[in-house]
């Protein structure tokens, strides 16, 4: 028994290139469906990519909001709002949603978009040597609500306003660890009685040339980015509720202090931190490497993090009598940044509910029986952050 026993995870939702529900994502992975599409931003720079895993920018009608919401949001916030709407559709049909006991925990990227519109650069170029003219240009060209639309936490404000969430909250940024931090602290807010329910979600950055500039700077391994969001609900179990479900069984988080983004130095430290986080999660879940049936590692996009994660997983699971299968959603979603570990959580909820798992083999993904009702989800931040969560099927 841990203090997480009273929490159940439900209402999984994803908005990715593979579709708008977990079953469609699952099927796309098994079918090997190509869900990528050409990206105009990639036509020319940042080869060799031509395609990315893109989603439509949700409009006001899709989001169920007034058009003015679009003025104070950017695609990133709108993807988040849509993910939350997909997740809360079911609970809203069952009863009231929102209020002072409903909290919100989000993993958010930095908003990676030029503040000055790209087509204004020609004018900026002409006045570049005159600070007063540059300031005047900014005053004219920056959109009135850019101070809000470029603030990543505005996504939290929109979701809160749309669903009446007034509970305890937090938002983390900017990489994949932010998504699992949101899951961990959202779950804890319910377990510790701060919230009756917590909406937990994360969103990817918008695919944009500046994202690639940043990725390259940080040691990009060429992984294809994707857009989307993933959400779920953590809720306290009601007394006497024996319905099957999935609970968070354990978590761990650490930092590889010697790690440095884009460099190999500190890779051992980073692997140590990931292994430490996994061991802490296993211990809290009162299990060991043999108790995990499915590992959903991070979709890491730097070479250094990739090697560190592999080393850590080898270390933890090398002695397991029946090592778990490892599978990511990356071939159907691309790399989703903060949303990736939550998309994996959503997949794990689907698998734990049905007793199935996904296993990667060569270029394909196959579905098979899940031998033990536990899955491990990992997130490795770019600079050495490490988070791990063990999910467990209850009565499934």
């Amino acid at each position, binding site marked *: 028994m841990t203090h997480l026993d009273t929490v159940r995870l439900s209402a999984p939702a994803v908005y990715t290139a593979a579709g708008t529900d977990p079953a469609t994502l699952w099927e796309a992975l098994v079918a090997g469906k190509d869900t990528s599409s050409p990206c105009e931003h990639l036509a*020319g*720079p940042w080869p060799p990519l031509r395609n990315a895993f893109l989603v439509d920018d949700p409009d006001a009608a899709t989001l169920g909001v007034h058009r003015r919401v679009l003025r*104070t949001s950017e695609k990133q916030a709108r993807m988040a709002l849509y993910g939350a709407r997909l997740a809360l559709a079911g609970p809203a049909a069952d009863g009231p949603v929102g209020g*002072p006991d409903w909290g919100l925990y989000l993993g958010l990227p*930095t*908003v990676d978009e030029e*503040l000055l519109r*790209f087509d204004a*650069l*020609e004018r*900026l*170029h*002409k006045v*570049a040597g*005159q600070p*007063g003219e*540059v*300031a005047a240009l*900014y*005053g004219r060209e*920056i959109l009135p*609500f*850019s*101070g*809000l639309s470029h*603030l990543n*936490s505005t996504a*939290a*404000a929109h979701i*809160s*306003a749309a669903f009446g969430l*007034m*509970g*305890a*909250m*937090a*938002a983390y*940024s*900017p990489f994949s*660890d932010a998504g699992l*931090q949101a899951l961990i602290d959202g779950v*804890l807010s319910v377990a*510790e009685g701060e919230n009756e329910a917590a909406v937990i979600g994360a969103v990817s950055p918008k695919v944009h*040339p*500046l994202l690639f*500039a*940043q990725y390259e*700077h*940080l040691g990009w391994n060429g992984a294809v980015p994707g857009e989307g969001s993933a959400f779920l609900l953590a809720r306290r179990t009601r007394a006497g509720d024996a319905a099957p479900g999935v609970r968070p069984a354990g978590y761990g*988080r*650490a*930092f590889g*202090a*010697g*790690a440095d*983004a884009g460099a190999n130095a500190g890779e051992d430290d980073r692997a140590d931190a990931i292994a430490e986080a996994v061991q802490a999660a296993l211990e809290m879940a009162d299990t060991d490497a043999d108790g995990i049936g499915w590992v959903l590692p991070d979709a890491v996009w730097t070479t250094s993090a990739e090697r560190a994660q592999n080393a850590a997983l080898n270390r933890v699971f090398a002695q397991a009598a029946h090592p778990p299968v490892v599978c990511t959603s990356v071939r159907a979603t691309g790399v989703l940044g903060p949303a990736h570990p939550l998309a994996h959580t959503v997949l794990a909820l689907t698998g734990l509910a049905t007793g199935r798992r996904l296993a990667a083999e060569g270029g394909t993904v196959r579905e098979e029986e899940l031998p033990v009702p536990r899955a491990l989800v990992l997130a490795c931040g*770019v*600079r*050495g*952050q490490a988070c791990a969560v063990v999910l467990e099927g209850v009565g499934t």
Partner: protein
Amino acid sequence: MTRRVVVTGLGAVCGLGLDWQTMWDGLCQGRSAIRAWRLPGVDDFPVRYAAPVDDEAFAERYGADEELNRPMERRARFGLAAAGQALADAGFDASGTPGRVGTAVGSGVPERDPHELLHAVSEDGRPSWQTLYARRAGLNPASGLLCTNDALAASIARRHRLRGPALNFSTACAGAAHAIGHGLRMIRRGEVDAMLVGGADSVLNLPTMTGLHLLGAPSTSELFGDRLCRAFDRDRSGLVAAEGAAMLVLESEESARRRGARVYAELAGFGSSLDAHQVTAPHPEGKGAALAMSRALADAGVAPEQVDCVNAHGTSTPLNDPIETRAIKDVFASGEHYRKLAVTANKTMLGHLIAAAGAPELIATVLSVRDGVVPPTLNLENPDPACDLDYVPDKARYREVSVAVSNSFGFGGLNASLVVRGHEQ
């Protein structure tokens, strides 16, 4: 496992000074860091006052520190400096820290260089992404295009070899308060033994200040000179932006006792909330703000009647101040206890450190409890009738402060409150 959490280290870099002692002395003396300010080379930018860090003094103090002189954003430089101060103040020497120590900070939007995107403009004057790609090696690693929000927490953790979790909070002006509150929770649970928590921010650059100006957030008034930040005053007209950082070392009481560490105060409670109202304005009845304060008090096991002081968010904006006043009156309504509170607005002296704001204000709250001094709210010459509490105008007040609350309310209704209580050594 529930453990008491105490504050054992402080660090600050702000317009009032480059260490917490100077900052605290300035606050108690009613000195203001707000001064006439202009963007370099820009005479007619509408925002004319700010509270910047003294670059010359900073360079003099930290010029020999190689780590701090690597290319990095200003906020990261200030944050690293404040973190080093706090860890040294707590007695954590360079060779290691006691037990497992994590890092949690709040930081805002990356600092963008207005000229950085000119790398995308080709010889013929036309912008293209291909051009930017070809010149990407020339991008400045200390500019917003390449900077990410996790850099500060990671840099602190790496420099001081802190192996506990490293988190960055993005909750606008409540970022530092959220980081501090979650640090408290992590120690309570036994997840870590200590946390380095706080925030760093610098918005005094053209792109961010333009964005804030277009929202109508900063005051453009020139009527009051450096007395422009007028929280709770009838003539307030907007926030006055600042930059800097503040960090605190939080530690379990057992760990502090084992080390024989000096304890400033107990961090007793944390509460957060959402307004669920509008992105552009706080809840008109202050419901979110009141929820954050009530939750923090409940978390601390403190009754509203036990509170002596509220370190207000107090932004000097037309909307915040009366709404915060209303929220305080709601929370402390029993027996009209709100009439007995000393409410202070540090931003009238520090300016608004945006995502970092909650950190220097928590330091001030901690020291109010330790020293029995409530810093004044400056420039409160004509109180707004809707702001009718005791805001400690003009001069610091010497009074016992057993329990104090510190408020931080972010854009879009993301709220956090912290409760500080005196600690018996």
